[in-house]
Every structure is written in C-alpha cells, then in structure tokens.
C-alpha cells in the first residue's frame, strides 16, 4: 500500500512543518491550565484518595489536548485542501476510500498522541504521575485519537467554509471535552449532571485514559473501552461512507 504510506507521510509532514503551532502551542495551553487550576484548587479538591489534584489533572489535560488536536489535524487538512482546491491531487489518484480514510485518521492520531506526550512530559515536572496500567492508557490514547481523526474527516468533508469547522471545534469539541471530567470527577456532580456526563462520549475517553495512570476511575475501563470502541466503529463507518460516496468531494 505505498499510496497509503505516501498520504500518511504527507499528512505527518504537513503538521510537522508547522509543529510550533500544531504541537508546541497546545502543550503550552495545557501547561497554563495546569498552573492555574492546580494553584486555585490543589488544597481544596481531592478526587481519588492519595492522589493530589495536580496529579489527577495531568492525564485529563493530556487526553483533552490529544482529542482536540487529533480533530484539528484531519478537519483542518481537509477543509484547507477543499478550499484551496489541492484536494484534487488526492482525488485524481488511484487511492481507495479506505486508504484515504486510514491515512488521515492515523496522522490525526499521531498528532494527538505526540501532543499528549508533550503535555505529560512538560507537566510531569509539577507533580508525580504514576503509570499503573500503561496498556489501558495506550489503548484509550489510540482509540481517542482515531475517533477524533474520523470525526475530523466527517467535519472536514461536511464543511464548506473554515468557520464551519471552527464552529464544530468551538461549539462541540471544546465544550464536550471540557465537560468530560478533565478538571473534576463526575462523581462529584449532582445526580442529573452525572447522568448527563454519561451521555458525553468524551467522558469515557478521559476516564479510561485516567484509569491507565491511577488504576482508579469513575467507571470500569471495560465499559469505557466498549463505548469508545463502538464510537470509533460508528464514526469510521460514517467517514468511509462519505468518502465512498464522494460526498462534497466528487461532484
């Protein structure tokens, strides 16, 4: 599948060439959140027994950054290519819809994971973060990146303008990731909001990812991985179907 490899390489090179903006900037944002929230809340909040609030916060911030950046990667690449017209360089080739899909999703997941690693690396200076179940953490990182890569493809194909992608990002992705239990445990919420949080797919990604670090979570990681896996399959099916149908791509 050398065609697929080339598209993957191109997508990786694309964000790597502007890594100041695509990697360093989100790492800095996460660091600012950590400094502000840990300063304000460290002494007042304890979520898991024996885990300092700052430590609790770090995996959540890493996952939030991963999700937002994976989405940004595939959605911005597609909308830019569509608007500038250079999407035809891909559409003119013998690449199959599955190859196009896989390349964009994988590149998005890689960017998300690289940003998350950056966040973990920089923030680990401020508080110890154990990694008790690394395989769980890895599984949720990869699944989360894949889901957001696929969602970015759907948004990038659907949108006709930059501000539609920005609206998707600002009105759906950012609120849902913020409210996914990054800064708090949903168990601390009133019953209604606890139930509402369980309808938020991002909650399972954050909670499962955090389980990988502390071996403790709001709900069982098996439940989370099932929900997250189901989302990945559903979004992948949607993204692949759009590519196959040529929706808004092949007129």
């Amino acid at each position, binding site marked *: 599948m050398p*065609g697929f490899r080339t598209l993957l*390489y*191109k997508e990786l090179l694309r964000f790597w060439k*502007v890594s100041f903006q695509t990697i360093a900037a989100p790492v800095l944002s996460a660091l600012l959140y950590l400094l502000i929230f840990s300063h304000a809340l460290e002494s007042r909040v304890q979520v898991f027994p024996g885990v300092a609030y700052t430590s609790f916060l770090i995996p959540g911030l890493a996952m939030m950054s991963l999700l937002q950046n994976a989405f940004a990667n595939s959605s911005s690449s597609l909308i830019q290519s569509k608007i*500038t017209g*250079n999407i035809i*360089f891909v559409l*003119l080739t*013998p690449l199959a819809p599955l190859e196009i899909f896989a390349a964009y999703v994988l590149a998005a997941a890689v960017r998300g994971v690289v940003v998350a690693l950056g966040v973990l690396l920089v923030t680990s200076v401020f508080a110890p973060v154990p990694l008790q179940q690394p395989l769980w953490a890895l599984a949720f990182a990869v699944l989360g990146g894949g889901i957001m890569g696929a969602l970015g493809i759907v948004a990038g194909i659907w949108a006709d303008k930059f501000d539609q992608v920005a609206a998707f990002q600002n009105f759906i992705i950012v609120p849902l990731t913020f409210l996914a239990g990054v800064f708090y445990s949903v168990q601390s919420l009133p019953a209604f909001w606890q139930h509402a949080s369980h309808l938020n797919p991002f909650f399972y990604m954050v909670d499962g990812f955090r389980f990988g670090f502390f071996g403790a979570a709001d709900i069982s990681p098996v439940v989370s991985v099932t929900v997250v896996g189901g989302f990945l399959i559903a979004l992948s099916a949607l993204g692949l179907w759009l590519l196959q149908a040529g929706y808004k791509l092949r007129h």
Partner: protein
Amino acid sequence: MPFAIEIKQVHKRFGSLRALGGISLEIPQGEFFGLLGPNGAGKTTLISILAGLARADSGELRVMGYDVVSQYRHARRRIGVVPQELVFDPFFTVRETLRIQSGYFGLRDNDAWIDEIIERLDLTDKAGANMRQLSGGMKRRVLVAQALVHRPPVIILDEPTAGVDVELRQGLWHFVRELNQAGHTVVLTTHYLEEAEALCSRIAMLKQGVIVALDTTRNLLRQVAGVRLRLRLAPDRLPAALATKMIGAEDDSRLLALDSYAQIESVLADLRAESIQVQELEVLQADLEDVFVQVMRRH
C-alpha cells in the same frame, strides 16, 4: 487496441442546469485532440468526469479500456490531468510535491523521471523552493509536472496556457508535442484557437453540453467556404460591382468576401476597368476562429 478515451451517452446535470446532454466520443490512442467551446459548454465537466473528480448521471466512460467508475484504479493510473485552476499545496517544495504525487500512484524510485520532468519544464532552479514562492507561470509548470509524474498514456490539459507568457507557452507545446510523438494521447482545451489549429489533428466543439462539431481539423477548416481579400486601393474607392462583396474596412484598406479563389481574377478585372490601382493585396484564409464562430452561430 482499445481507444484511449471512450465516452458513451454521458449526461450530467447540476441541479436544473444541464452540463452535459448525451456526449459520445471516441479518441484513438496517439491522437492530439482538441476540445473547444465557449465558457460553460461542459468541457471541464467532461474532463472532471473522465478523471473521477465528478460523476456522470448516466453513460459510460473508459480510459485505455478501463471504466472510470468500476475500474477507477486502472483508469486513473493511465490518465494525467492538468487542471484549469492554479492549485498548489503551500506546505511543500516543488520536489516534495512531485515525490508525494508520485507516491500516491504507488511509484517509488521515480526520482530519475522526476528529475527529467523538472528539467524539461525548466524548474531546476526552483526544485527546492516552496510552492508559495513561485510565480503563476511556475506553478502552472508544476501542475504539468504533477500530471506527468506517473507517466500516463493519456494526458489532459484543461486550458494550460491561460495567463501564461509566450516563452512558457512555446516551451510547453514543444514538450507536449514530443510526448504526443512518443505515443501519448493528448486532449487539450483552450481558448486560443490558433493553438488548437496548430496542434490538434481532430477537434470536437461543444455548446451547452452537446457536441456541435466533430471532425479533423482539416475538414473543419474546409467547411468555411470562400476567401477574404484585403485591398488597399488608389484611389480609395470600389467599383459598384464589388460594393456588395465588401464586408468591412480597416484604416485605409477594404475587406471583401469571395466565394472562391476563382473570383479574385474578376475582382482585379473590375478594378482595372475603372483604373483603380491595387497598392496592397492580401488573401486571408479561413482559420479555426471563423469555423468556431460559424459553428457556434449555427447551433
């Protein structure tokens, strides 16, 4: 030997607009084919459908015998399209752009050919430059290079010389002609009719999504009967017998339309009879532009 391009009864609508209304066309391998028509005639739509950028509502299209929908992988390997729009990816250099495009087609170790097209298209100095830094003409050359990077037997150029300087235009035609002589089938759309006349052995003219003329360039030129005569006379007046033949005047000369070459003699006789001297005489032959105008008027 299959046709390079086979198009059968292709229809395409965009909403209420009929873009293509039943196009059928066969282009043999090795031909230099011209696709002409006014803006909005459907040329680019037809090319887009051939290349897989758009989908026909009905009908069948084949490239080197491969169906462009059901056998798209085979078809797309065999066709290279130079798009009309000046598009580029601002993230990459010229060489990166070409390597990536080559990789999409599954080609590795294609650097020798990439070097060759870079050189042939006079891009050597710019190979390491970012696409953003190139002038419009240079970007156009890169688009040509991208279309050729997988050595397609069928090359489609959609108005490749729009807004391009004379030097590049000539260099480009020289290169494309060579590719055609080496066996590549070339399909060209252009608004420069003299280019089409000089390059294309056969031409289709489109209007509102249908083919209104399809013939060899020679036969098309023959269709336009008659010759035109440009005369500068002293004294500057026409005998009454010739007044009906006059179709125009430029500065100090007059333009006459004749049915055939044979009439030139009688025109000269009429002038001699009235002692009008011919100071300048030019016989103008019909060109593709005349044919084009006539065909478009008729339909």
